[in-house]
């Protein structure tokens, strides 16, 4: 038995580790560092119907133990992704989770219908939480009703299971989770970035051209852990968690909080070898801690509430 393997709706993962959307492009760059088949899955960069240049630069700014970004969903558009990026990725033995973004319900539906037919796309991730473009779906991500509706409509057209990526910039993320569960979501991914801002000390102007950006990295981990802890105890949906993962112990934390798999975002920039290093360390932890399976850790933090379904392969 592979003690790291995990079965989630649509996804047979060799291990619970995958790069987070937007932090790994479409895989090409990181393929110079290691064999992408080592990964549990790959969450590719948000794809929209048309090609987008995204926001003006500067697009990133560093903050204490974190970074802000406002890339603005730059991507080559659905057709190009279908014709080039996804076929290129078929050389690797790794399931692809396609991050889908748009401005209107129709955008999401159109992209989902097409991209879910690609042979290596095993699940969709509905990005209803991008804080960096006015028309980037954040409206869907902050209103439970709209989110439920969007999920239901995408489910109708998708050939593969649908995960919904939740925004932390809400009063109750649990309410959002329950809404998309009702809408028929197969899983949750969380969290997207927190909206933040940094000013230039001298001029007082925002450093990022878009003014605000999304905060990621270790700074947000306590917020993300809390949200995973809350949501995982309230829904039956599996959670792919993310936010500030730097090493295998952070992964242990997310599983303990109730996640079933974990994505690595910003840390890829800090260390391009982060994902395979974490996977290797997880194997060691499983051995040293004498776990039958890594998901023995799932929900450890819940205390006496008992366990929900796990997702061991």
């Amino acid at each position: 038995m592979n003690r790291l393997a995990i079965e989630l709706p649509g996804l047979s993962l060799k291990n619970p580790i995958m790069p987070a959307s937007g932090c790994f492009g479409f895989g090409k760059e990181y393929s110079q560092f290691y064999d992408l088949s080592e990964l549990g899955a790959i969450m590719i960069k948000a794809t929209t119907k048309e090609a987008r240049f995204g926001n003006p630069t500067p697009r990133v700014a560093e903050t204490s133990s974190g970074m802000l970004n406002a890339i603005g969903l730059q991507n080559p558009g659905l057709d190009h992704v279908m014709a080039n990026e996804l076929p290129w990725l078929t050389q690797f033995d790794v399931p692809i989770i396609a991050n889908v973004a748009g401005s209107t319900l129709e955008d999401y539906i159109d992209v989902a219908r097409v991209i879910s037919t690609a042979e290596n796309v095993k699940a969709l991730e509905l990005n209803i939480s991008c804080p960096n473009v006015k028309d980037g779906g954040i409206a869907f991500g902050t209103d439970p009703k709209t989110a439920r509706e969007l999920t239901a409509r995408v489910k109708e057209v998708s050939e593969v299971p649908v995960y919904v990526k939740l925004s932390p910039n809400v009063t109750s993320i649990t309410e959002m989770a329950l809404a998309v569960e009702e809408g028929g979501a197969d899983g949750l991914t969380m969290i997207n970035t927190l909206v933040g801002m940094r000013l230039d000390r001298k001029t007082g102007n925002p450093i990022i051209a878009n003014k605000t950006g999304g905060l990621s990295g270790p700074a947000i981990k306590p917020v993300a852990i809390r949200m995973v802890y809350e949501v995982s105890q309230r829904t039956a949906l599996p959670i792919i968690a993310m936010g500030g993962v730097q090493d295998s112990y952070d992964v242990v934390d997310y599983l303990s909080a109730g996640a079933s798999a974990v994505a690595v975002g910003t840390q890829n920039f800090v260390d391009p070898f982060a994902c395979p290093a974490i996977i290797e360390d997880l194997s060691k932890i499983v051995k040293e801690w004498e776990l039958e399976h890594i998901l023995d850790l799932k929900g450890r933090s819940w205390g006496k509430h008992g366990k929900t379904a796990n997702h061991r392969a």
Partner: protein
Amino acid sequence: MIQKQDMIIVSHKQIADHIFELTLRGSLTNEMTSPGQFVHVKIMNGSEPLLRRPISICSIDRENEQFTMLYRVSGSGSGTSTLSQLMKGFTVNVLGPLGNGFPVDELEEGQTALLVGGGIGVPPLYELSKRLTSRGVKVIHILGFQEQKVVFYKEEFTALGETYIATVDGSFGTKGFVTDVIDKLDVTIDGYYTCGPAPMLRAVEQKLSGVDGYISMEQRMGCGVGACLACVCHVQGDDTGTAYKKVCSDGPVFKSKVVVV
């Protein structure tokens, strides 16, 4: 091949106001091919500062497996200020070499190259100049700085070829900008290479529009390897508005008139 390596600090010293010279040793040096490439430096382990810092390669010493970079400490509490406190014997984690540098074989022996640097854009021109002169290309350096106290590497450049310094306040060399020096030059330039602040790059590109040239761009970076799309720039003459180049992996050096500076 891009590598990641803990490299040993061989020497580390201040050479001008806020300007430090850092020499690192490690086999990663062997991967460095062209002048103008950069490295991405992780200043401390852990989460603070979180991101790597892009710093140009200033000179390469293959024999001793070491290379030198020059950097400016940008303020108290900045990553570079922490870097400046690390002592000989400690290691610094380096990712590199990154990006595409200046091509050195476009010019023939006897031709004349103009190298124009501004401020902390000067360092990559040093390895470039060494390569060009070793091929017998004649080099002219024009180096612009704010003021006398931040001038560095005057002797080093002078040893390789004619060197003009301009300072904005006139406290050293010509008063004014590098373009003021270009105006006064009375030689035929066969090619130019420039690195520095964007306004300078634009001015140089315009002034030397008849000459083939290479421009090294700067942009805030996330990954440094082409994955995050933090560092993009527009492409000249693109009507769609969606064409772009990534400074980190398509650049940082571009042929003139290719990207929008």
